[in-house]
């Protein structure tokens, strides 16, 4: 198991290298540069050249990449060109915000979606199933940022139940923190419920067809018990894989939600970094997101046999 994990990690290294090189190149291909942005419309050529030299941007791109990679291997992702903060701690602190929201939303969504999806599968092709599937489809069809905006308008501005902007970390004031993230979490949860319900339903339908379910039924177990004992736990395994994918996608892609609710998260950091041509921040964010993606997928793969009867049986 450990060997498998290490092996998988080793295999992902070329992927990460490829990602980092592509990001490095791509962000430099984008017109506009950090120095010009910093100096604005008053920049004179000499000043620009001086500052570029000071930031090491005047060297060849290979030298720049080599140096960056060398430092990155030592855990130093450089410093932001906009505010001179070290990138790694910056990325980590922003990631906390994103992770809080994403994990909370996915956890709540999974808790709601898996039972509902299983019930739909069990009642397959009945009115209840149809209602659940339609509801889920409707939910996942709503663009997250639009839903977020509508929620903000309704609960934040019209009703005034929750603060509309800002963020307080949990370590500081748990109650305040919860108030600030409730809307983004609810928004994400609603949409993830749509996605996960459908996934859980499909997984449960597969399980329901397996022999041991038929066997359990044949033994005379009541349907409720079959569902609880056999279907639900087993449908969890494939759903877990999908949760893994969802998590990976979300961690990289909540920039829109973070923009709507002005949360200082990782996605926002990346988008702002792109706009400000903050090369070290963009590179750091991308490397981090890619790493997370790889790690989450690995964890899911490792956890899979623990839950899936078919895999352990083999």
């Amino acid at each position, binding site marked *: 198991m450990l060997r498998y994990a290490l092996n998988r990690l080793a295999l992902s290294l070329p*992927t990460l290298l490829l*990602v980092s090189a592509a990001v490095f190149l791509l962000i430099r291909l984008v017109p506009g540069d950090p120095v010009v942005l910093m100096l604005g419309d008053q920049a004179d050529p000499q000043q620009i050249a001086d500052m570029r030299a000071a930031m090491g941007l005047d060297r060849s791109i290979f030298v720049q990449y080599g140096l960056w990679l060398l430092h990155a291997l030592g855990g130093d992702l450089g410093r932001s060109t906009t505010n001179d903060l070290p990138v790694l701690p910056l990325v980590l602190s922003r990631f906390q915000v994103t992770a809080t929201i994403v994990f909370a939303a996915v956890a709540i969504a999974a808790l709601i979606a898996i039972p509902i999806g299983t019930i739909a599968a069990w009642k397959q092709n009945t009115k209840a199933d149809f209602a659940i599937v339609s509801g889920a489809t409707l939910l*996942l*069809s709503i663009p*997250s*940022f639009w839903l977020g905006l509508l929620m903000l308008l309704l609960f934040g501005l019209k009703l005034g139940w929750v603060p509309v902007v800002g963020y307080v970390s949990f370590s500081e004031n748990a109650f305040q923190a919860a108030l600030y993230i409730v809307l983004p979490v609810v928004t994400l949860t609603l949409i993830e419920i749509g996605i996960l319900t459908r996934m859980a339903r499909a997984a449960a339908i597969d399980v329901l067809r397996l022999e041991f379910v038929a066997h359990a039924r044949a033994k005379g177990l009541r349907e409720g018990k079959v569902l609880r004992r056999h279907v639900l736990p087993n449908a969890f395994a494939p759903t877990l894989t999908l949760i893994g994918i969802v998590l990976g996608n979300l961690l990289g892609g909540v920039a829109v939600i973070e923009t709507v609710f002005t949360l200082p998260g990782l996605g926002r950091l990346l988008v702002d970094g792109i706009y400000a041509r903050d090369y070290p921040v963009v590179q750091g964010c991308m490397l981090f997101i890619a790493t997370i993606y790889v790690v989450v997928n690995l964890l899911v793969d490792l956890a899979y046999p623990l839950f899936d009867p078919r895999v352990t049986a083999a």
Partner: protein
Amino acid sequence: MARIPLKANALIGGLLVGGTLLMAATSVVWTPRNPLAVALRQRLKPPSPDFWLGTDEVGRDVLSRIMAGAGTSVMVAGLAVLAAVLLGSTLGLIAGFLRGWVDRALMGINDALLAFPGILLALGLMAVIGASQWGIVLALGLAYAPTVARVVRGAVLSIREREFVEASRSIGNGEGYTMWRHVLPNTASPVIVLATSMFGWAILAESALSFLGLGVPPPAPTWGNMLAAARPYMESAVWLSLAPGLCIALTLLGVNLLGDALRDRLDPRSTER
């Protein structure tokens, strides 16, 4: 157990998607007003008999822009999916058929692309190509191609061992011919199902990117950039954000329902037949 006529999926989905396509097609030849015509004296007018869906922040007719936006959004999403399917199928076919180191190398690149957030890809490409809808088509096409490649490769790997492929080889048909004639057609079903979902993703992604300011550049309307532009007026001019938002949601709903119906018909693993 009472069976629900699952054709309802296809029917409702078809109607919604059909409506969008119709709107898109109509906008090519006719819109109530010129969707780009600015009338600064008519800013932010609420819906009225003159302007059925009101006017936007520079006095353009929202209904006309919604219609023209349907055209842009459908075209961008359609072309992006087409690009993804062409590129992904080619890669998946090659990887699945040649196997060995080619497969490993291609899938390595594939995984790298999968770990690459679309936002940066989009911005990077749009900057290099120049801000245009082609940038976003290419960006989304590249972003979705790896998923297609995976599915096609999986299908190829399972199909190539089937009897009829063996049979084709045994009667002396070349590898290329076998691949073209027997393997490729059999990957069609999962790809069609996937392409349908991707069409939905592309519409969503285009609107999300436009919302972040990285999408199809204005003044050409898309639902996404209309929504982004409407944001400051959310309270004072609700119609501006309701119309495009609803359009995106309904189209996506249609695409998803249609996707379900297609899956039921085409996917061999389908559970609802």
